[in-house]
């Protein structure tokens, strides 16, 4: 199968600052105030200001314009000028993004871009989606919007938001069908009055060489039967041939325009003229040459775009923009930015993005592993992917689809190679992704990718996940494959957790992860991205998954089944992910009891020693205490959000410094097990609020 590599699009999703406040709502301990009714779009003048600041700092103005972030804030607490961090980060962003989304995603995923110093400021604006139209170097979304407004009788051409259905209806009330104008004025006069809108200057010049007016030329065509007959769909039409292969097709009675072929554009349907004298399509379609190798087709209904397809030179559809589910038209705002719509791609991987008023409703990705999957029977189809869906309560739920390779590793491990080595990771990635991904990776990237797998494996086996070693390895490989494809950064950003370390991400980090992920996904689908112009639309991820703990518990592990299986997304649930907390105690040192209401109660406020996550260590302790004759020795346990543990670890001090820091948790037994903490009175109070109901166990 020939694969035309298409220079195309990237999406850079930036969430706006106010959206970030929603994200913060799910990050305990972060202190941004919440805004109940966040405005969605940053004023253009602010974006401009940021662009200038970004330029002064050396960030490519196309980038900073896209991001619209307060780059000046980078000189604040999170950014240390003078230690090369800024230069490194800026260069990484510029070079990485301009070099192509694929490599940026790779570098970001493997922590080589050194982006951290700028994260909190550079991306503190929020997700923006921006599909860059680099088809042949052009800007496809600006081009598409212009093509739409040039031809459709839509209020957007007057600079009014295309979301304003009422205004569009009012506008249409004052649109006169061109057939009525022809009846009123006659064909010649009607065409003459709109000639400058319909015809190119070269055609008009050519006509005026022989006729005094365009109307006279048209009249001559009609009166002297100079039109030629063309048949379309079994019906005859009268074609007025213009210069350079252009034409106007009239219906059989010559009382209406059926089709125009002007330059590279073809328009066919019902035409009209609005109250401002603008000629355009009410219903019908338009095709145009987008660039040297790509064409676009618009379908219009009542002056609104109802479908837009971009096709390649072989007339294969690359992507399709359509109304979002429930809408009857693609909605633009007054700035020509797509606001409510869906985009579907039809390359080797399938991407579907649905946005409403700038917010992502659905974002899904599916990568078949066989390029000829479409001819395979259902039971032989194999691939992987993910989906993000906005719930009715504003939260998001994700699902991931796993390939057979993943399922095999999940059950039996990865055979024949050490996936933490370059050779091993090459084999693993080759099995999990289409071959071109590995071919694009250099040695350093492979080394870093292997390390990323190791980091994740260590994290997933560190307790709290309940994975077997094989399961942890499968997840580590899968998430790392997702780095390369782009969906892992995207999902990490949405869920607010780094799956290599379990670290909770700041709002800025989340925004950048989402942006990088989204860019990478589409960049990969379209064979790389040569980003960046300011684009089109501004989707945001509003709030973040809340039902995560439920999802974690309902994780579907039916990995032995045939076909694509979806699991809820355990690896990204860190903010809500739980960790089981163990304590071995007996009658003399009882601190945990079951209260009258059935909930666990903590007695006393002296330092409370807890073991976060290690069942094996708890059993060791129990064995020792039983051997020593401790009366009533038992293991008691309960669950807390992992974020609570992270908070405790973040402020804990070594035990020897505990006396001097009586208000801080202490870390103990560090050579024996991780996450062994002594909580002080203050943290015990916080713990009480974080104990997850109905998780208390005694055994």
């Amino acid at each position: 199968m020939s694969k035309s590599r298409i220079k195309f699009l990237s999406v850079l999703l930036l969430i706006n600052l106010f959206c970030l406040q929603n994200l913060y709502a799910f990050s305990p301990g972060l202190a941004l105030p919440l805004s109940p009714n966040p405005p969605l779009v940053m004023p253009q003048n602010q974006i401009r200001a940021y662009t200038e600041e970004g330029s002064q700092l050396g960030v490519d103005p196309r980038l900073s314009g896209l991001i619209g972030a307060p780059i000046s804030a980078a000189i604040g607490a999170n950014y240390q000028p003078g230690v090369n961090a800024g230069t490194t980060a800026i260069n990484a962003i510029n070079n990485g993004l301009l070099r192509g989304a694929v490599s940026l995603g790779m570098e970001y995923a493997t922590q080589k871009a050194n982006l951290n110093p700028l994260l909190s400021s550079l991306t503190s604006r929020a997700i923006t989606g921006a599909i860059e139209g680099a088809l042949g170097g052009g800007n496809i979304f600006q081009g598409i919007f212009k093509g739409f407004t040039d031809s459709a009788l839509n209020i957007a051409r007057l600079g009014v938001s295309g979301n304003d259905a009422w205004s569009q209806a009012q506008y249409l009330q004052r649109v006169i069908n061109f057939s009525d104008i022809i009846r009123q004025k006659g064909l010649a006069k009607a065409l003459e009055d709109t000639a400058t809108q319909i015809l190119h200057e070269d055609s008009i010049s050519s006509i005026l060489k022989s006729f005094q007016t365009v109307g006279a030329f048209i009249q001559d065509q009609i009166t002297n039967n100079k039109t030629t007959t063309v048949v379309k769909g079994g019906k005859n039409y009268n074609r007025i041939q213009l210069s350079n292969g252009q034409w106007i097709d009239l219906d059989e009675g010559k009382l209406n325009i059926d089709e125009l072929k002007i330059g590279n554009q073809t328009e066919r349907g019902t035409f009209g003229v609005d109250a401002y004298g603008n000629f355009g399509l009410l219903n019908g379609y338009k095709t145009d040459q987008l660039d040297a190798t790509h064409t676009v087709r618009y379908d219009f209904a009542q002056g609104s775009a109802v479908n837009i397809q971009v096709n390649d030179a072989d007339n294969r559809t690359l992507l399709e923009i359509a109304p979002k589910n429930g809408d009857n038209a693609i909605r633009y705002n007054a700035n020509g930015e797509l606001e409510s719509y869906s985009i579907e791609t039809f390359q080797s991987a399938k991407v579907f993005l649905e946005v409403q008023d700038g917010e992502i409703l659905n974002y899904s990705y599916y990568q078949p592993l066989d390029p000829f999957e479409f001819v395979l029977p259902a039971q032989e189809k194999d691939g992987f992917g993910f989906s993000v869906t906005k719930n009715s309560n504003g939260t998001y739920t994700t699902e991931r689809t796993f390939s057979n390779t993943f399922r095999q590793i999940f059950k039996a491990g990865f055979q024949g190679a050490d996936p933490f080595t370059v050779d091993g990771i090459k084999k693993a990635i080759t099995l999990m992704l289409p071959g071109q991904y590995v071919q694009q990776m250099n040695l350093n990237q492979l080394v870093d990718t292997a390390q990323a797998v190791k980091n994740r494996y260590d994290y997933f086996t560190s307790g709290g996940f309940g994975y077997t070693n094989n399961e942890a390895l499968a997840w580590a490989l899968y998430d790392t494959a997702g780095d390369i494809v782009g969906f892992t950064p995207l999902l990490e950003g949405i869920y607010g957790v780094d799956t290599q370390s379990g670290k909770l991400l700041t709002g800025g980090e989340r925004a950048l992860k989402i942006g990088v992920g989204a860019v990478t996904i589409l960049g990969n689908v379209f064979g790389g991205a040569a980003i960046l112009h300011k684009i089109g639309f501004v989707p945001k991820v509003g709030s973040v998954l809340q039902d995560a703990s439920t999802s974690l518990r309902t994780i579907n592990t039916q990995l032995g089944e045939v076909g694509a299986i979806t699991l809820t997304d355990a690896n990204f649930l860190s903010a809500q992910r739980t960790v089981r907390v163990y304590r071995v105690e007996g009658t003399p040192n009882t601190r945990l009891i079951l209260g009258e209401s059935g909930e666990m109660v903590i007695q006393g406020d002296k330092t409370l020693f807890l073991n976060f996550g290690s069942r094996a260590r708890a059993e060791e302790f129990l064995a020792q205490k039983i051997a020593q004759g401790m009366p009533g020795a038992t293991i008691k346990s309960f669950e807390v959000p992992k974020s609570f543990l992270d908070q405790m670890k973040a402020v804990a001090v070594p035990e020897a410094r505990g006396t001097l820091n009586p208000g801080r948790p202490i870390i103990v037994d560090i050579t024996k097990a991780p996450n062994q903490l002594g909580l002080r009175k203050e943290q015990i109070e916080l713990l009480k609020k974080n104990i997850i109901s109905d998780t208390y166990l005694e055994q």
Partner: protein
Amino acid sequence: MFKQLTLPNYIFERMIGFSLPKRDKIIVISYEGIHELVLGAPVMVTHDTLHPEGGTLYDSQSRILSYDNDKFKIIGLHGGEPILQSNTGEKIHLDKQKQILRIVQNDSKVLLNFSYEDLSGDWNYATFSEDFKYVFLAIPYNLFIFQR
């Protein structure tokens, strides 16, 4: 030879330190309080839970506990000065890796060979008492006392 004294089956959950005996009495500081152990058969323990971690009575810098009108030098979390050799040349060998305590005479005769399980790993000390009558092995979760 040394024999291990039997201690009550629970004294503390996690120890911060202990003192060398004075008049057969030692003091243990834990996160629960101050524990007074009178060495004998059996060992008697009195718990003072008003002073968890020694409270203001314990100065972790000097490792001195001022308690019961007396001052006790504490060995444990914040360091200490164990007595590793007796007046007759007996030496304490504490292998923290293998978790073995040995008391060896000058002529290399092993007077005590004691294996223990250290579930903490943070600190451990073994020391003679000042009168060399006792040997103490202390780790955060356990205290072992041996008497001649």
